[in-house]
C-alpha cells in the first residue's frame, strides 16, 4: 500500500487520517462529537490493535522533532484517546453524553503548543 500521510508501518490506517488527524485538542474533541457510532467504532477497531506499537514507534523521537508523517500519526493517536473514552467508558451513553460535552470548550492543550 502506498502511503502519503502516515509512516509506512501504519499505512493500514491511511484512510482514517483525513478525518481523525485533527490539529488541536478542541478539533479532536469535535471529531468525537461529530462522528456517528459506526465511524467511531471503525476508527477504534482499526487503531486499538496498533496503539502500543505506534506509540513505541513515535517514542523514538521527542515530539518536537516529528516529521510531517509522524505528526499525522500522533494526531490520530490523540484522537484515539478521545474515541477510547467514547467506546470503552461511555459505551451506549456516548451520544447522550455528547450533548453535555458540547458545552465544554477546550481553550488550550499542551499537545497543541
Amino acid at each position, binding site marked *: 500500500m502506498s502511503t502519503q500521510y502516515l509512516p509506512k508501518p501504519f499505512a493500514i490506517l491511511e484512510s482514517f487520517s483525513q478525518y481523525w488527524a485533527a490539529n488541536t485538542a478542541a478539533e479532536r*474533541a469535535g471529531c468525537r462529537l461529530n462522528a456517528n457510532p459506526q465511524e467511531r467504532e471503525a476508527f477504534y477497531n482499526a487503531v486499538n490493535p496498533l496503539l502500543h506499537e505506534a506509540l513505541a514507534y513515535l517514542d523514538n523521537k521527542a515530539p518536537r522533532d516529528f516529521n510531517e508523517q509522524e505528526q499525522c500519526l500522533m494526531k490520530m493517536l490523540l484522537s484515539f484517546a478521545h474515541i477510547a473514552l467514547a467506546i470503552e467508558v461511555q459505551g451506549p451513553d456516548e451520544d447522550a453524553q455528547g450533548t453535555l460535552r458540547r*458545552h465544554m470548550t477546550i481553550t488550550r492543550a499542551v499537545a497543541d503548543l
Partner: protein
Amino acid sequence: MSSQTNKKATMPPEEELALGTDPIPAKPYYCPDFFALEREAIFKRTWLQVGHMSELPEAGSFIVREVDIANASILITRGKDDQVRAFHNVCTHRGTQLVSQKDGTAATFTCPYHAWTFTDKGDLRAAPDFERFYTDKSQCSLPKVSIAVCAQLIFINLDPTPTQSLQEYLGPLAAELETLTVAHATHFSEYVYEIDANWKLSYDNFQENYHLRFIHPRSGEAASGPDNPFGYPVKYGFEDPHRTQTIWHNPGFQPKPTQGFAMGKAVEFALASGVVNIENAKQYYALFPNFFALGSPTQPFTHCIMPIAPNKSRGVIRIYWAGEDQSATQRFSREYNTATAMDIHAEDRSVIEAGQRGLDSGALKHIHFQSQEVLCRHLYTQVERYVTAYQQEQSA
C-alpha cells in the same frame, strides 16, 4: 464501607464544627440583592485565584483577567525586574480599557484612545501634549491591585489594603499546595464552560459525592463502589474559610484497557518527574471562595468558578503538567486524562442548571444538606459569616 467512611456517615462533624444541622435558606442561591452583598463582602476583598506563573514565562510577559462580578479587568505584568504586578486595566486619562489582548509580551502599554503610554510598573511614561493637563505624571499611574503567589498560582485581592496576606489567608494549606504538581507546572491544558447557575450552587456540586452514582454512572466508577456506594470521602478537613476532603478510591475498580494504560503512564511520568508528593494524591482542596485543586498526579486539575450574575457563572478547569511532552506516550497520556476529566465535568453542568431553574422559581424557602454534604454547608456558613461581617461594618 470502610470503618472510616462509616464513622463519617454516622458521626457528622457539623456539631463539633458548630455548623448546625438546620436547613439552609434558598434565597442566597438566586437573590440579586444577596449576590450584590457577596460582591462587596467576598469577591472585592478576599484573595481570588486568577492565573499561573507559567503564563508569565519571561520579563515583559503579561496577562489580562476579567473579574466579572466586580466589573474589573486586571492587567498582570512581569516586569524587567522580574517582579509580578497587577493593575486595573484602565487608562488613568478617561478610563478607557488599556489592553485588549488576553496575553502577550510588552514593555509598555499604550491606550488606543489618546496614546497615553504606561510602563510595566504601571507608571505613566508618556502622554501627547501632556503640558496642557492640570496634573503631573506621578498622579497618573495605573491603579494597583494586590497580588501574591502560592504554589505558582497567582492570586489577586481587589481590596487595596487586604486585611490578611495570602499566606495568612491560606494558613496551613499554603504549605500543602506547594507539594502539588501545580507548584512545579510549566504547562497546562484548559477547558471552560458557561453555566446558568449561581456560583455556590455550581461550586457545591463539586464538593459533594452524593450525586456520583446518579450523574457519573460510567465515568465515576473509580470513586464509588459496593463498599462505598455513594463514594463518600475518607476524611474531611476544615481550615476556615477553606475545606478539604480526602477522596475515597474504589479498590475494586477495573479500568478499561486504554484508561488503565493512560492512567498508569501518567503515574509513571509523575513519579519520574520527582516533583509529585504522592501523599497528597487523594487530597482535594476547596479554597474560599471559588477555587478547587486536586492532588492527583494523573489529573492534577484546578477548577475556578467565577460568578457572573446571580444565576450565571463560568468554570475554568486546568490540568497542570510539569515539563513539556517528552514522548508520544506522555502526550497521549496527558490528552487522555484531560479528556477524561472533561467527560466528568461535562456530566455535571446540566443537572446544576436544572437545580438553578428550580431555585429561581422561589418555590423553596430552604434546601437541605445531609451529613456528607457538610462541605456545602461549610461554604454557606462562610459566605454568611463574610456577608454578616460586611453588613455590620456598613451599619457601624
